[in-house]
Each structure stands twice: as C-alpha cells, then as structure tokens.
C-alpha cells in the first residue's frame, strides 16, 4: 500500500504494546454479526501507472472546453485563470491544512480569509463578507434564510424567474419543510418589472431574490426593485456576477441588504460544476446572523496584529441547533484562489476583463442576430456577458448539435427550465473568446440548411 508506513516489524511491536495478538483482534468491539464476512465487491487496486492510464482514457472520452470554443455560461464560465493562482493554491501548506481552529498554526489561512473578506466587501460595496459557502445556489438559499431570521418574517419570500433556475430549485428544497411560501414572479420580458413586484411583496415577505445581471444576461432594474422591496420592509437579496463588478455599480451603492455570488469566475476551473464557492456579503448590522466562518483581526498576548476565527457563537460547533447555519467545511481553497485572482487582477485588470466580456458579448449579439438571418435576440435589453438567442426555424437541439460538429459549445438550451423558451438558447462570451471564434459561431449557426432540420424533426 503506497500510503502506509508500518512495516511488519512495526505492526508486531505495536500489537504487542497494545496487548492484542492480531489486527483482527483490534476490532473486537465490532460485533461479529455486523462484520462484513467477504471482501468489498469493488475492483482490485491499481498502481499509479495503471490509474493514470485509466483516468487518461476516461478523460479522452470527454470533449473538453479546450477542444471546442466554449460559449456556455449559466453560472459557470470559461474565464482565464492566471498561472499565479495555480502556483499559490498548489502550496501544500494551503492545500493540506484545515479549518483554522488553532490560530497560531494557521495565520496564513486566517490572514488569507481576512483579505478575501476584505476584497469581497470592497467589490460588492458591503461592510462584511464571510469566508465562503458551498456555491452560488446555497449562498442564495442561506441569504434567504438569513433574511427570514433578520426580519422575523418566516412565511413568505419572492424570487424572480430570471434568477438561475437551479438556485431557485435549491431554495425551494431548503424552504419546503419550513412551510415558507416561495412566490416566483414570471419575467416574460427578460427582467422583473417593478410594478409586478409591487403586487407580490406583502407585509410578511422576508425578502426579494433577484439576480443582476440575471440568468438571461439582462440587467435588472435593481434600483427600482430595491425600493419596492424596502417599501414593504422586505430585504433585497441580490445574486451578482463578481466579474461584472469590474464595471457595474456595486450592490452596496443601490442599497442591497445581502449580496451573494458564485465565485467560480474568480480564478477557478469549471470542473464540471464544482467545487466552486459561494460568496456572501452583508451589512455590518446583520453580521451576527451570517452563516459560515469569519476571520477577524485582533492582537496576540504580546500585542502583535493577528487573526482568528471570530463570532463563532453563530456556528454549529458552539451553538449546535441554535446556530445560524449547519455549515462546517466550506470552500476555503476556492476562496483562496478567488483572493489571489483579485489580488493579481487589481482594479485595472478586473475592469479589463469585465470590459472585454461586455464588448465581445455585444459583438456576438450583433453577429449572431444579424438582420435577415434565422436567429434573433429574445430579449433586446442591456446585457453584460450573456444573452438569449431565439431560432426562428431550426430546432435548438439541431442547431447546437451542428455547431458542436463545427467546433463550438454554442449555448445552453433553455427548454429544460423555461418551456416557453423552447426555441431559445443562452450564449455566454468571456474574455477568452476571440473575434474569429465569434465569427465562426455566427457562420456555423446560420449555415445549417433547413432540410437538415426538417429531417431531424
């Protein structure tokens, strides 16, 4: 076994010291009838060389985003990751440490959490941030729970249909057994209309959950929506794209109460959906209701500046069933990657990434929906890096399949979540997509002959 150190001599000496005759005897406290009388029915061990060949073979059966031009988004994006992120996160001292329960042996992690919290708070315009949650969806669900506890309103919450469908599904699952009603407001025009929100928010509504830019890529009318929510004493919880904050107004500037985000875009690989990280930031007055770890600055016994896990009385290991959340293990390493990414990007770098996404997405919009062709923009509204395309004749599946053959992950079909958008797909454009790729995608999507489509149908 490659990771065991005890030699047969060691084992003999150790058993003797313990006072038992065999390894088997060590398990005496496991009742005989509860012991597995056979071997586990799993395949035999592989050496590193064999395992490598096996995994390489599995990897070859996938088509990666390195092999196709990736225009897929919907909460996971093919952004550029600078080498410095991998170099730092690959340090074993970060990689193979754990939650900093012993502050003196974890100052590196604690300071990194503190710096991460600072950068997230600055980026969102909020007072404080925690040290990460699981992902964007659970961060949104936790934010809604937090708004329920902060307002004391546990009966009702409102979400826009333009919030990521999987975030809303997650929220629904979290709320199901709490008896909290979740009203989902349709967004037929691609964004949530403030008048419509006004009719849905009640005196017992804990919060309004909105995504900006939303799942369709469109900018929501956040300033108006915040007013509507606050008028009824409901909190405004907003899901943002951290990259967009290189350019867009900060949620703190439009008076959001809790900001959450999927942090994958900040230096993390797509990795088929995880591990990612849930970002959460809020106003200082709510920090004691915030879930998750928080690093705080203090001084040591000799007056030296240092960091600890703080406000732990919110957490499950102290407060048990009265904790603000059940989260324990979080996404620390991904938060570190986000921190290094933001530190490397700086204000100018992040702004450049955001601007490139915006400009290229805008160019792709015009190219894909060029007049007289079969594709059109479904929502002709200000958008950041994503947009919804409608196909007038070919089926979406056929279009995307043809585009795949031509070398493109062209978009995400929307029918699985929005039956009324079964002729639509979502296209994302990051800074990594070149003009040639965008032109190629436009050509490929407009080249597919009608007959092919008819034959498939």
């Amino acid at each position, binding site marked *: 076994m490659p*990771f*065991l150190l005890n030699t047969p001599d060691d084992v003999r000496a150790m058993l003797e010291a313990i006072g*038992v005759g065999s390894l088997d005897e060590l398990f005496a406290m*496991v*009742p005989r009838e509860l012991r597995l009388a056979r071997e*586990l029915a*799993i*395949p035999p061990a592989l050496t590193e060389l064999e*395992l*490598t060949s096996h995994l*390489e073979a599995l*990897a070859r059966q996938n088509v*990666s*985003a390195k092999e196709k031009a990736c225009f897929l988004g919907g*909460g996971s994006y*093919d952004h550029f990751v600078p080498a410095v992120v991998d*170099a730092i996160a690959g340090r074993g001292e*970060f*990689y193979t440490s754990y939650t900093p329960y012993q*502050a*003196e*042996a974890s*100052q590196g992690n604690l*300071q*990194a959490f503190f*710096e991460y919290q*600072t950068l997230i*708070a*600055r980026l969102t315009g909020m*007072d404080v941030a925690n*040290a990460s949650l699981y992902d964007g969806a659970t961060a949104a669900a936790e934010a809604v729970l937090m708004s329920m506890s902060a307002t004391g309103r546990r009966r009702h919450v409102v979400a826009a249909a333009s919030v990521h469908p999987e975030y809303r599904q997650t929220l629904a*699952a979290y709320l*199901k057994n709490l*008896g909290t009603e979740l009203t989902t407001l349709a967004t037929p025009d691609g964004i949530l209309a403030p008048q419509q929100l006004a009719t849905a928010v009640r005196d017992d509504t804990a919060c309004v959950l909105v995504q900006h830019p939303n799942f369709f890529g469109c900018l929501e009318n956040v300033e108006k929506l915040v007013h509507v929510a606050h008028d009824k004493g409901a909190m405004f919880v907003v899901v943002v794209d951290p990259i967009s904050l*290189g*350019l*867009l107004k900060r949620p703190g500037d439009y008076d959001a109460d809790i900001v959450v985000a999927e942090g994958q875009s900040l230096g993390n690989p*797509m990795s088929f*959906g*995880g*591990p990612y990280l849930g970002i959460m930031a809020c106003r200082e007055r709510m920090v004691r209701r915030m879930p998750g770890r928080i690093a705080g600055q203090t001084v*040591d016994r000799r007056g*030296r500046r*240092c960091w600890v896990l703080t406000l732990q*009385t919110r957490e*499950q290991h*102290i*407060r*048990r069933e009265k904790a603000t959340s*059940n989260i*324990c293990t979080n996404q620390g*390493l991904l938060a570190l990657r986000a921190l290094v990414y933001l*530190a490397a990007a*700086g204000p100018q770098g*992040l*702004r*450049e990434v955001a*601007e490139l996404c*915006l*400009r290229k997405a805008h160019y792709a919009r015009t190219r894909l929906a060029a007049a007289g062709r079969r594709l059109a923009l479904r929502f002709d509204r200000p958008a950041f890096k994503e947009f919804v395309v409608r196909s007038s004749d070919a089926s979406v599946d056929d279009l995307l399949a043809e585009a795949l053959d031509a070398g493109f992950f062209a978009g995400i079909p929307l029918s699985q979540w929005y039956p009324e958008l079964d002729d639509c797909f979502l296209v994302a454009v990051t800074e990594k997509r070149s003009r040639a790729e965008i032109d190629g995608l436009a050509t490929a999507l407009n080249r597919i002959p009608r007959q092919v489509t008819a034959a498939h149908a």
Partner: protein
Amino acid sequence: MRNTRATQPLFELSKPGRRAMRMPAADVPDVPLAELLPESALAATPPELPELAEPDVVRHFTNLSTQNMSVDTHFYPLGSCTMKHNPKRNERLASLPGLLDLHPYQPQETLQGMLALLFELQELLGEIAGLPAVSLQPAAGAHGELASLLIAAAYFRDVDGKRTKVLAPDSAHGTNPASAAVAGFEPVTVKSTPQGFVDLVDLGAKLDNRAAVFMITNPNTLGMYDPNIKRIAEMVHAAGGLIYLDGANMNAILGISRPGDFGADMMHFNCHKTFSGPHGSGGPGAGPIAVSARLAPYLPTPLVERAGGGFRLGYDRPRSIGRVRSFFGNVGILVRAYCYIRTHGPDGLRRVSEHAVLNANYLLSRVKHIFPVPQGDRCMHEFVASAARLKTDKDISAMDIAKRLLDYGFHAPTVYFPPIVREALMIEPTETESKETLDAFAETLFRVTEEPADLLHEAPHTTPVSRPDEVRAARQPVMVWPRESSPDDGAGG
C-alpha cells in the same frame, strides 16, 4: 525562512500603478461603453482592489503559506477530521484537462468519460455503505446531513405526515442538531451513558410517533463502535423512524462493517476525510449520501444513470427533493475520491482501516499512562483523552496542551469536543503516520505535562503569534481591512 515584510496585509503592500494581470486589447469593434450599457448601471470608480505586481503576489502568499501547519508538513492529529496524506497522483489526475475543463452544461455525449467515472463512484460508495442508492450532489458532510433530512421529511410527508423531531446523541457533532434545525425539524438530544454510548432508556423515552430520524455517529465521536447499534436500529425502526449514520468516521470501518448492514437507512461520506480529498484550509469537501431502496426515489436530481451503451444525467425523478445546490456536485473532490478507492481496491481499503485503528490503539496505549482516557483501553480510529485531572492538579487545560504541542512541531488534537468529555483531547492519528511519529508525539505529550504551568499558559512560544485575544476579536469585530490607515479604528466597515 519567513519574510515578515511580505506578509503585510495586501492593502499595505499596494502601490498605485502596479498590476499583475493585463488583458489583451479588444479584437472586436470599439463601441463606446455608453452605447453598450446605461450610464446608471455603471460604477463611478474602478473596483477598490489593491494594486500589486506578480512578484508581490507570489511573495506575499508564499510567505503566508509558511505560517500554516499542514499534512504535507506536520503530524496533524485533529480528531474527527481524518487528516491523512493527500496522494499527489490524485491532484495530477483530477487536473487532466479532459476532466477539469468540462462545463456542467456541455452536451452529455461530450461527457461520457466523466459520467462513467461518476456512475462507477456511485456504485463504489453504495457497496462500501451497504446501501443501494447514492447521490454525489452534497458539497460536504453537513450538506449531506441536510439533504438526507430533507429526504426524510419528504418520505414522511408521503407515509404519515406528522413526524417533526430529529434525535441525536449529546456526543454528536454540532452539525447534526444544526442540520435538523435548518431542515425544519425539532432537534432533540439523547443522552449518552457514562461510557459514551447511546443511553437506550433515554432513547426509548424519546422515540415517539413524532420522531422522524435518529442521527448516530458510529464509530461515535469517542472513537468507539456502539455495541448496541443493531438494537438501536431495531428500536428506531420499530417506532417508525429512520436511522441516519453520520459517516465522518468511516475511516475506521472500510470493508469491515457497513452502515447498511448495521441498520442505517441513510448516511453521508466525507470524501475530504475518508477518501483523502485535500482539506484545503477548510474545504472543499464532498458529502455524497447513500440511502436504502425505499428512500431512493427522494434523492436529489440528477443521478448518473446507464443509458444504452453509455451514461446520462437522470432528471426524471418525480418524488425527488429537487436539488440542494447548483450543478452536479463537488466533482473535483469526487474524482479524487474515485482515484483513492481505485488505488486501494477491496484489500487496500480494509488495510487503511486496520492501520488507522492500529495507529490509534497504539497511540492510546502510550497516552493512557499520561492522560486518563475515560472510554478505556481500546478504540477504533481515534480516542478522546481528558486533561480534567491535570486541570485540577496543575491548572493545565486541554487548550494549554494543544498550544504547547505547536511548539514541538505537532498540530494540536481537536479540543473540547465531544462535549461529553471534560477537557477533551480528541486524537486521530490516521493510517498515514509511522510508529516513530506516534512515539515522538506520545513522548512530547508526556514532556508537556511535566512542564511548569506558567510556561504552558503562555504557549506557544515559537509560532509567529501566540494566544490571540479572541474576546477582543468578538467584542470589536474587525472583519475587513479598514479604509483608513490605522487598523485599530476601523470597526467592521
């Protein structure tokens, strides 16, 4: 050698005009920003981030890293956390572009290798659990607890609709009662016997027709296999409830005793513990769950299913609780777990547990002469010693010992958990440590208890900082770098 100049907080290192990342010029037509986005949506100023060059970033974070203890650098016997060696092969393999650069919404025909791997992992975990149906979706152990309790809630809505309580022993990890509360149940605590096992009388008294689930950790948080586990499961089942097995301690029983065989209806794995996922300064983990056949319809979607000659993501599950997160799961950690299980095979996994238990018992045999171990002479993969006597006799607490161990180059055990042992030191050596390391650790523990109390009260003495003022951190929380120059006047914002 540490360079303290480089570990100043990022904003102190920042200098206007520096930068590490530069993007290429746009290769698309230059349209004025104002034509792309409404003025009202734009920020007035660039984001408030520090300005650093790449050498700054590298030196800063590299020096920060040297202020951590880690498994790669130190013995890290943090009980309940299974700080075992992280195989380097897993890191390399999980980073193959064909596994790492996959978008979660790619067409499934472009994901057949990944889906094959995940399907096989579902099967492997089901076999190790002795439970037939597996969801890989939860992001960590606590998330697996929550998902399972939501499954129980859905199940009971279907069968009777009035079970509102979730029971857990007083020795349980904090996540158990917290998950019960988050899932909308009323958490109820069941007492432990003086030996640390579930008190059957108290359990019996609390098992009424409103009890939905009993959450049990076996081996328990004292590192003991509950001899009554079968009886407990029978009691809970007879009362119409379900058994949830907190699988944090699976490292003790791989291929030796299966939760499904000792009565569990559902359980989670902590892949970052048992299956060697790197703990990454607090995460990521992965907390797959395994359940019995009658609970399988309620598992979150999607599961990986066989389809024709290949695999697909199965969403057609009408009784599913839905989903508990976005996308498939913490796939990168699941890939590492898969690599770990395939590296070991049936014999190897069993050996892992045998050596984890051997190391713990050996260390116990050496430590019990120094500290009382209330549970006795034997343990599974970990044990809990008590510094209560030392506290009374010499005013040396579990925390003092933990801090002093750092001076000798050992990470501390888990302290003050489980809550049922006074001055608890919870020690889990794992199988990836040698007899020499365990001997050195035991000798150090002994030496520490002989040291003057004053020395221990001020320990550690060799770390970059010592005994941070936690009260001050909580009373006047400073959770972000203050905008003004002095770090002391900035409260939280």
